[in-house]
């Protein structure tokens, strides 16, 4: 039976190294994919190693009442990528934070991406290239929501944004995606 993260952390803190290995195996693909999206493929391996090292060093400080292990790990990843981008003097996540105005739209989700758009997105390369062109905050919401199965609440916790802002980013991202592929 698969153990949940809380059990694995407890076991690791009791001295079972294999439990932390299980957490690495469970999340390394997600962290890698997220890193590639925001720091590029060349740097992602180092970022993944850095993230797990930080998680290992701070595992005793992890508090499951504040956030899930997955959210905590993504917060570490986000901070690591921000530090990395700052060092490289590339655009940081926060550069888009000013764009906070509320987005009101009456367009229903079904209409945002019609079937023709979804058919076009079946081309992996087109989807990845289009995602790369979407502003980082919007792309982040799409990646975390559709690839990492995170809820809007978890994404809000990670991005330190209110739920409505996250939902607004999600809607804008989908509209941008539609416009870019049409």
């Amino acid at each position, binding site marked *: 039976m698969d153990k949940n993260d809380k059990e694995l952390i407890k076991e690791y803190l009791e001295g079972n190294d294999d439990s932390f290995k299980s957490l690495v195996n469970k999340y*390394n693909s997600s962290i890698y994919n997220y890193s590639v*999206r925001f720091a590029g493929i060349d740097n992602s391996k180092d970022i993944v190693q850095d993230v*797990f*090292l930080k998680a290992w060093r701070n595992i005793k400080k992890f508090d499951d009442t504040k956030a899930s292990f997955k959210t905590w790990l993504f917060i570490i990843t986000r901070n690591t990528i921000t530090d990395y981008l700052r060092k490289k003097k590339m655009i940081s996540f926060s550069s888009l934070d000013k764009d906070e105005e509320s987005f009101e739209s009456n367009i229903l989700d079904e209409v945002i991406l019609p079937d023709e758009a979804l058919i076009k997105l079946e081309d992996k390369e087109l989807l990845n290239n289009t995602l790369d062109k979407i502003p980082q905050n919007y792309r982040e919401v799409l990646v975390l929501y559709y*690839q990492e*199965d995170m809820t809007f609440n978890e994404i809000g916790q990670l991005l330190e944004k209110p739920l409505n802002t996250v939902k607004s980013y999600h809607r804008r991202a989908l509209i941008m995606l539609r416009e870019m592929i049409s």
Partner: protein
Amino acid sequence: MEQKLQKLFKEASYQPESRLSGDVWSSIEYKSAQITKWKKFGYLCLSILSLFGSVFSIKSLIEQAMRLGFFNYFSLAFSDSGAIATYWKEYTLSLADSLPVVSLALSFFLLFILFISIRNTSYQFKNKLLAS
């Protein structure tokens, strides 16, 4: 739409090389070994320093106790117990007065540090033996 989009996004995920999790674990093990090495070195230094400190402070404690006449008062307890039973209040005060309190506290503190550092050094060595 949401489920379809989820499927498309998942298919377009970037996948790491299969050895990435192994590499991550190796870097954690390397870092852990480094930390253990530094801890061992630190505790060993602390053990040696506190050992020397304890020796000097105990030596100083004995010298001060002799100078203040603590041992003279103390030996009375074995030679003239009848007088002590009669004047026990005066005896206790004299004994306390001749006690080098600062040196005694310093010696206890250093012995405590020595005990803790020896315990932690042996713990680090034990962990290394278990790991190998």
